């Protein structure tokens, strides 16, 4: 049973540029995943406005009964978020590592068009290695 259910990457305008699901729980079709992405983008933006404290940069963790959602937004506005089983550890560092993989295997690919859906095999390969559950623990570098 995979601890991570799915991974989303959304560009700065809220478009879903990468979606991958792991394991059987919560599998979604393309339309639903697009909907989740744009919904999250809006909620993330609204949360910044609603926050009673200044200097809030949006929701980082959403805890529900059946899942946790961890979100990381880079300073350039790209959001990475994973949906996982409640209480899964090390998700912040996993998201950081995914961000590094994105800079290495997506942005450095000269044929990748910025802000467009990610179709990079090297990214897929390296990502699946990182996401393998037993390796997540090793990422605290």
């Amino acid at each position, binding site marked *: 049973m995979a601890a991570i259910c799915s991974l989303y990457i959304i560009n700065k305008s809220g478009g879903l540029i990468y979606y991958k699901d792991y394991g059987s729980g919560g599998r979604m079709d393309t339309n639903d995943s697009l909907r989740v992405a744009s919904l999250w983008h809006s909620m993330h933006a609204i949360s910044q406005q609603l926050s009673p404290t200044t200097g809030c940069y949006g929701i980082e963790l959403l805890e529900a009964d059946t899942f946790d959602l961890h979100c990381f937004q*880079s300073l*350039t*506005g790209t959001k990475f978020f994973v949906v996982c089983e409640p209480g899964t550890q090390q998700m912040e*560092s996993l998201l*950081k590592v995914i*961000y590094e993989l*994105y*800079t290495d295997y997506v*942005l450095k690919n000269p044929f990748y068009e910025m802000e467009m859906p990610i179709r990079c095999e090297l990214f897929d390969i390296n990502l699946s290695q990182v996401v393998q559950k037993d390796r997540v623990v090793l990422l605290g570098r």
Partner: protein
Amino acid sequence: MAPADPRSGDAIFANVERVNAELFTLTYGATVRQLLTDLEEVEEVNKQLDQMGYNIGIRLIDEFLAKSNVARCVDFKETAEMIAKVGFKMFLGVTATVTNWDANDTCCSIMLEDNPLVDFVELPDTCQGLYYCNILSGVIRGALEMVSMKTEVTWLRDVLRGDDAYEMQVKLLKQVPEEYPYKDDE
């Protein structure tokens, strides 16, 4: 979990894969040479180098942020220091210094002590108007634009053109707010 500590330019530089410096310098030289052949006009080459740098910068900024773990800069002053101390070290292995701030802290100079792009270069008489390192200014402009800072980067001094140092002027034109709504109905 506490965010990871920022890493120094030296530490990142030591950890990334590097290529032979000569290969890098000669590749860049060959690129400029080819642009001169293709575009003929020195002015056009300057523009093209700047555009190429911009295209690099808009992608490279994410690598910079991902690998350096730096936090959001509070002001433009800190941003400039970050570029000089961490950015240049991380990607070119050299350090730069920031000087000549104007009164509003929106315009400064980045001085390069060592410039690996020009190791074997002498500008011929026919290329006197060429800003050989114009790619670097484009990179800075592109990178800053992705973190909502519109800038103008120009070369003030260039050793290849007979000056005594490499000096780039970085001028902050405007800071685009990141907050919603974007006021698109105005």
